[in-house]
């Protein structure tokens, strides 16, 4: 699998997208903190974090005894530059704006 495959595969799972959203809200968290926000075993959370790390979407750093997890948005940016900019940016932007507007007024 190439890098892009790993990213698409990692993003294809709702729990993993949920983990990314939690890190977007507050970055640099431990496994224990992330686990406390999910209805899932520690082992399950570890497994998902490993997939995200393998795809480069999560980067870990040591801080003393703790291992902190950071959201790395660069692979998503690479997908954006490869697939969105090239094919459809202005059309996508118009549709995304329309969707936001319709959902806000609904």
């Amino acid at each position, binding site marked *: 699998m190439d890098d892009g495959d790993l990213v698409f595969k990692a993003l294809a799972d709702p729990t993993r997208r949920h983990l990314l959203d939690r890190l977007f809200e507050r970055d640099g968290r431990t496994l224990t903190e992330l686990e406390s926000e999910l209805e899932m075993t520690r082992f399950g959370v570890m497994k998902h974090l490993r997939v995200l790390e393998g795809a480069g979407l999560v980067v870990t750093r040591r801080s003393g005894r703790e291992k902190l997890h950071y959201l790395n948005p660069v692979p998503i940016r690479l997908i954006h*530059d490869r697939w969105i900019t090239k094919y459809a940016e202005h059309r996508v932007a118009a549709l995304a704006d329309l969707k936001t507007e319709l959902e806000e007024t609904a």
Partner: protein
Amino acid sequence: MSTMAAQATQVYAVFVRATPEQVWDAITKPEFTEKYFFGARIEVRDGRRRSQLGEFDWEEEVLEADRPHRLVHRWNAGYDPELASEDASRVTWEIEDTGNGVTKLTVVHDELEASPKTAESVAGGWSYVLSGLKTLLETGTPLQG
């Protein structure tokens, strides 16, 4: 977009098909940076990191320079007077040879606690910069804007 406060420690990483020396040159020489760093000409030399972008000229202190492994410098947002009035933060570039001609570049932008506007401003920018750097080194041409 979220209204969350931007993070005081931000970590970005990218794998690039290039040598650590090529990555080092791309982040320390103006002829490279102007092609992917929002057009800024940036030069790291003699303990200073000098930047020039349009009408703006500014420089930051280099805290560590170990070619081609590690570069640490202060960050002042000299391209924007409002941001530049905030405290200086810190940027660490870690360059790691992973074998097979692939280099891992990690950027840690931290000490942003007292600089919330800068933190917000750089949060989207780093992804763009690193994506552009990867494209430039791998294809020889900048990203199409």
